[in-house]
């Protein structure tokens, strides 16, 4: 973890396809005659108009289902234009936004989970429609779904961890610690793009600034890691920290859908995940008390592999030699990692303090072997 990693955000500054659109969700107003009616049930999402003019658009939402739902207007790459959460069963809500010309999707999410029930809509006139290779839009959309799913799946695992801390059960907390981090580590470049959450949940002690108080200002997983493995006791403060972790991760989950993601930021994100491994995990700095570095390591590689797999259909056309090399090096690194776990589907890895100097060098070499060609992925996407 570095204090500020905004590459995903900055990458987007150059992505003209995704021009800024102001969006706001209004509270009480129910739609007028021009409003587009969205009727949500537990299994459907009906939209009254599939084509409408650009500019100020109003959605009048009615939830006729039995579950709480939410409604999104999404770009082709799944980025959120606007959204409204917590629309209770049997209630109405209104959403308004400035929307430019282009293709969009409206999604209802009964139960507020998953990718939702989608309807394609077209907004005509005004500015030009966003144009990009639809295959790349699909890759970004899939990747956004992936990050969302990781955040969703992380929360219950983090709750298991937090509950164990809160109940003072050190052994159970230790067991739940590494698994609670996997989803975060898989999507770290996106997670870090919300600069305020990363320092709250994933800061290491040496990341504190001069003048910051480790007692007060250090929060998140690694603070609890230290309590569990080094201090070997859980205090009232730790219980508060566990609560805070869940709060921060919930905020993260809510933000994931709004992350700026482009095909090149996906590609660079893959490389960054390997950089995370190369600088923090392969040295054993990341999990210095729990020595669960190899779990993070594997999760970082999985996250990078996901980005790569989604971009591969485009990249293999632009640079077949690169995909061949990446397939080889991902394979080699995964084979090497498998040496450190009995069960190839599980995440019980050898503690990193039991991994010798020679083996660490071997891992480092394999990371370099993969990260070097991976640094060429963005160029191959942009071709």
């Amino acid at each position, binding site marked *: 973890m570095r204090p500020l990693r905004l590459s995903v955000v900055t990458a987007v500054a150059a992505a003209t396809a995704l021009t800024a659109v102001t969006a706001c969700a209004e509270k009480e107003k129910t739609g007028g005659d021009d409003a587009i009616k969205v009727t949500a049930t537990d299994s459907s999402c009906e939209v009254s108009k599939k084509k409408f003019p650009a500019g100020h658009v109003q959605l009048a939402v009615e939830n006729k289902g039995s579950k709480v739902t939410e409604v999104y207007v999404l770009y082709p790459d799944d980025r959120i234009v606007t959204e409204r959460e917590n629309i209770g069963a049997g209630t109405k809500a209104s959403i308004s936004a400035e929307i430019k010309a282009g293709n969009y999707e409206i999604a209802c999410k009964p139960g507020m989970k998953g990718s939702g029930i989608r309807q394609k809509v077209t907004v005509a006139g005004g500015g030009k429609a966003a144009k990009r290779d639809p295959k790349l839009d699909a890759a970004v959309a899939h990747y956004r779904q992936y990050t969302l799913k990781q955040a969703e799946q992380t929360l219950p695992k983090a709750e298991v961890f937090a509950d164990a801390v809160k109940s003072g059960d050190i052994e159970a907390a230790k067991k739940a610690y590494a698994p609670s981090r996997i989803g975060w580590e898989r999507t770290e470049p996106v997670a870090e793009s919300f600069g305020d959450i990363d320092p709250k949940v994933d800061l290491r002690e040496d990341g504190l600034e001069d003048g910051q108080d480790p007692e007060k200002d250090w929060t998140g997983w690694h603070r609890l890691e230290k309590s569990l493995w080094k201090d070997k006791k859980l205090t009232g403060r730790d219980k508060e920290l566990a609560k805070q972790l869940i709060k921060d991760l919930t905020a993260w989950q809510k933000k994931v859908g709004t992350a700026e993601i482009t095909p*090149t930021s996906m590609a660079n994100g893959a490389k960054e995940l390997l950089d995370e491994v190369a600088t923090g995990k392969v040295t054993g700095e990341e999990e210095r008390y729990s020595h669960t570095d190899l779990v993070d390591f594997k999760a970082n590689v999985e996250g990078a592999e996901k980005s790569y797999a989604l971009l591969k259909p485009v990249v293999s056309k632009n640079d077949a030699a690169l995909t061949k090399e990446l397939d080889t090096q991902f394979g080699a690194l995964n084979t090497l990692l498998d040496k450190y776990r009995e069960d190839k589907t599980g995440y019980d890895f050898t503690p990193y303090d039991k991994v010798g100097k020679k083996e660490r060098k071997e891992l480092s070499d394999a990371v*370099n*072997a993969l990260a*070097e060609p991976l*640094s060429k992925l963005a*160029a191959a*996407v942009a*071709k």
Partner: protein
Amino acid sequence: MADEVSGETAKAGEEASGRTPSRRSVLGWGGTGLALGAVAAGGTVSALSSGDTSEPAGSAGEAVPFHGTHQAGIATAVPDRLHFAAFDVTTEDRAALIRLLQDWSAAAALMAKGHAVGEGAFGPVPESPPDDTGEAVGLKPARLTLTIGFGPSLFAKERFGLEGRRPEALVELPKFPGDNLDKARSDGDLCVQACSDDPQVAVHAIRNLARIGFGKVSIRWSQLGFGKTSSTTPDAQTPRNLFGFKDGTRNVAGTDAAALDKHVWVRSQDGPGWLTGGSYLVARRIRMHIETWDRTSLKEQEDVFGRDKREGAAVGKSEEHDKPLLKAMLPTAHVRLAHPDANDGARMLRRGYSFTDGTDGLGRLDAGLFFLAYQRDVRKAFIPVQRNLARSDALNEYIQHVGSAVFAIPPGVRDRDDWWGRELFS
């Protein structure tokens, strides 16, 4: 020596401030101009400076030809800086190794000319990291030489099918008394020696080769060196080592074709044909116990070496290059034991460098001599000489050999279609 270096630095500074020539343009006008200047001023240079006529003041920015019968970096003049790297080959794929050697040769040829590798430091596309790492942009070639070697482990069975091609003379070095070898600073499948007058140019070269090699090779260990401790131009004064002494004054001259043929270049009758025109390299990291040496009386220091500290003259002589009378020295004197006359005429071409890797945890300078010696047969040169030294050298009290490696050095890359090791792999 010191005057030459500072003079050259000043000159480079002027040029950089005036026009900031690209490395390529330096080659066009700077290199030629400087060379002509050196010829014209030759007499004056040798009269006024330390007399190193083969390495005139203006030579430091020049390019040394990469292509030739022998690899550059052996008999060519020794520049002042070193970055030496030993690599493990991590791929098992012979074709991948061959491709790497081809890529390396192409990159090395470019860098020796002062050019960037691949499509340069600013391209080819903004989304991609540049092909060249860029820290040598704007610097002169600075006499960069890149020299490759193949370690015994490369010839191991069931690796690359080279076991039948291992030269008989490529032996593992025996254990010498007093050695304290660190495996992490020893051996290697491949080595690359980068010598240059500019440390940044030497570091850049190894860094770029390492980068090209990711996934196929990994650096096992590396060593930076400064202050050459021997010269291939023995007419010159021998540079001093970190003990303040001149050592190895009878080095093989890079211009002495007969001595090179006799002591350095592998001949066709010596072994496998692929190595003809090549050599063998022994690399030793020799730690010097600086603090205890500095507390030693001048008398003892001079007795240990068998030389006078001021001039470098052997015991009882007045000039550095005066023929030493070995019997006048103590039986344990370093010069006496290392001299060819005490070793059946064995000679090596030495290109050692001083090194300082900061301080160790005990507050002692982590410093010493990175010994590099090229020879026609390790069994007839380094091994017997080092046996002799390890047994009795008075210097052993102040030094320790802590790293060791031996490599077969293939002949030169002939032209642009040729590559490092082509004959070994064909």
